[in-house]
């Protein structure tokens, strides 16, 4: 149900009419800027039909008035003179849509942030300049293609362990169906990464309760995918057999498996954190002197927060179990994030010693010789039990990354879109990431990220998925079918279509415009950021400034 939109390559159409709504933002803007003069300036601008100023544009009464003005019929676009698009776009784009106006025809002129701090005369001229620029920009905009995507209420989860199970359970609770593509023979229920195990038989219970909403495909792999949020088709294989699984969203929830001592140079009898964990769970009697060496022999290896996480938690448990034991943790650096930081402090209070050392401690007659980083002195620490890190392997990460063309981080784990702001997203919309095989797990354990990923997938599928907007469009007459856009786009939105020319899938396009800038035949334009628009804007701002 694509709305009719003029092509991004055609001439820029003339606007029916522009509405200008000026906000004094409770007086902040009007304190410095004469809104009366802005109103006059706007009213004199070609094609401007209605100019109104409000104390607070974004408040109920003003919104109602603006809506009425928009419904009047001779306005097909408007400029909100007030604050930033980031602050106001949701509200006004919704308003536009409800009034039958394409939301991409709303322009924001951010006087609040960019003008209000100037001295009075300067603020005024800056504001007038910005208003002219915004009006110029507004009149050049054109209706963008938009369509609502169909939504398959199934999520494909790729995983082998507790993260996949946790994500699946959350998704099932959200009323969605789940297909698990599991590269191993059986989903691993125990969680090596935390002391607290999942309740026994969770998987079995889940499977029973969910019925045909939950399918686990053991021994399968993903090969490739097509599609977009709401409708993905993932090619799955089992041995020689190949088929497609359809889903609305995808969660990659691979966990690390397996363990093997890191420190080959240590004597037999050294145990791993995982083995210690088993002893702690079994409430085994612990020896007097426990030393954890949370480091990798390879000095250049990525310093994993999981290493600190394990050591902190296990040292606390060991101390709790056997308060007379002396527990020492040695590492190059301690990475205590989130809850782990609390644990780190608590462990210290409980008497666990943390020693930083750049060098791997040497073993000497039942003791370890540690070189303390702060003093430079060697310290002899009696050691009845030496605990080293788990060596875990990412399971099939590379293959999955290849199937989805996702980048791998330096340590071979899958890279997240943004570790700070989008920790469970990949850069591809609709494809989420959790599990211990994704980039560092910040101590909250994989369950947390699995729940987060499931929640992102569920909220995606529970609301309308609109595609389009300021997307790229190919002019087939100009296209040289050179593949530059296909190679350039990080979202795989362009492809060569049946006609032998590039086509952009608007459901995948994020509107960044890299393809348009790199197209050697100038065959790609981006709605609202067409070359002629950009050039016109450059000319107009400089001309204006020059006056």
């Amino acid at each position, binding site marked *: 149900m694509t709305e009719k939109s003029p092509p991004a390559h055609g001439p820029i159409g003339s606007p029916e009419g522009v509405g200008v709504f000026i906000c004094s933002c409770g007086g902040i803007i009007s304190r410095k800027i004469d809104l009366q003069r802005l109103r006059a300036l706007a009213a004199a601008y070609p094609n401007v039909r209605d100019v109104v100023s409000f104390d607070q544009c974004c408040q109920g009464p003003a919104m109602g008035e603006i809506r009425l003005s928009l419904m009047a019929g001779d306005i097909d676009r408007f400029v909100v003179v007030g604050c930033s698009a980031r602050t106001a776009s949701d509200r006004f784009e919704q308003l536009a849509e409800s009034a039958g106006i394409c939301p991409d025809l709303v322009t924001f002129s951010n006087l609040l942030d960019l003008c209000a*701090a100037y001295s009075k005369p300067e603020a005024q001229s800056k504001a007038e300049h910005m208003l002219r620029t915004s009006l110029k920009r507004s009149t050049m905009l054109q209706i963008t293609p938009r369509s609502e995507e169909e939504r398959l209420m199934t999520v494909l989860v790729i995983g082998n362990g507790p993260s996949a199970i946790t994500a699946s359970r959350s998704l099932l609770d959200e009323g969605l169906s789940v297909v698990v593509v599991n590269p191993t023979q059986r989903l691993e229920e125990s969680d090596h990464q935390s002391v607290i195990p999942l309740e026994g038989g969770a998987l079995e219970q889940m499977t029973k309760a969910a019925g045909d909403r939950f399918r686990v495909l053991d021994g399968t792999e993903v090969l490739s995918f097509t599609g977009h949020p709401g409708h993905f088709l993932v090619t799955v294989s089992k041995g020689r057999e190949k088929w497609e699984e359809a889903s609305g969203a995808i969660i990659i929830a691979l966990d690390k498996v397996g363990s093997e001592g890191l420190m080959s140079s240590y004597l037999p009898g050294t145990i791993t954190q995982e083995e210690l964990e088993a002893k702690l769970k079994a409430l085994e009697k612990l020896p007097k002197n426990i030393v954890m060496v949370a480091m990798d022999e390879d000095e250049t290896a990525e310093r994993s927060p999981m290493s600190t996480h394990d050591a902190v938690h296990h040292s606390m448990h060991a101390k709790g179990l056997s308060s007379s034991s002396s527990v020492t943790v040695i590492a190059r650096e301690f990475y205590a994030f989130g809850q782990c930081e609390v644990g780190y402090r608590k462990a210290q209070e409980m008497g666990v010693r943390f020693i930083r050392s750049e060098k791997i401690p040497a073993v000497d007659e039942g003791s370890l010789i540690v070189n303390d980083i702060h003093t430079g002195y060697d310290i002899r620490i009696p050691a009845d039990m030496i605990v080293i890190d788990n060596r875990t392997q990412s399971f099939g990460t590379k293959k999955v990354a290849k199937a989805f063309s996702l980048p791998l981080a330096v340590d071979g784990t899958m890279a997240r879109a943004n570790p700070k702001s989008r920790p469970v997203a990949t850069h591809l919309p609709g494809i989420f990431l959790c599990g211990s095989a994704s980039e560092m797990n910040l101590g909250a354990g994989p369950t947390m990220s699995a729940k987060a990923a499931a929640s992102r997938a569920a909220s995606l599928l529970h609301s309308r998925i609109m595609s389009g907007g300021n997307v790229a469009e190919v002019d087939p007459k100009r296209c040289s079918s050179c593949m530059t856009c296909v190679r350039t786009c990080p979202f795989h939105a362009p492809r060569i279509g049946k006609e032998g020319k590039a086509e952009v899938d608007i459901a995948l396009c994020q509107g960044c415009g890299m393809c348009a800038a790199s197209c050697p035949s100038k065959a790609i334009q981006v709605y609202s950021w067409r070359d002629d628009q950009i050039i016109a804007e450059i000319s107009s701002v400089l001309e204006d400034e020059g006056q």
Partner: protein
Amino acid sequence: MRIIGFVCRDSALPAVEHAASKEDPYPSFITLVEMPCTGRVDVVHILRAFREGADAVFVAGCLEGNCKYQYGNIEARKRVTLTKSLLQAAGLEPERLEMFNLASNQGWRFPEIVQEMVSRVERLGPNPIGKVKT
């Protein structure tokens, strides 16, 4: 003085907005052109800005490795480098053009960028095109 900045709307623009809303707004002769991503900025856009009389042009995108679109800012950097060589050949000092990377919460960096470009223009003088045209 006329300085034009192509700013990415996800990081550089919020940074500027943040910086400008404090007591110390940037000089009003600096004009910004909002871009969806600096990866959209093309060589012709920059050249046109100089032709229209800009004394300096900067492109401000996200920190490398932090682009919402993965590598738009890297594409932009490559294009800025190319454009500098074209400016040189056309007869304009390449220092009038620069690429900057800043995060949306690095508003404090914007005045530095402005200062850098302003001092370059002060050193190089105005874009000679203005004189030629009039």
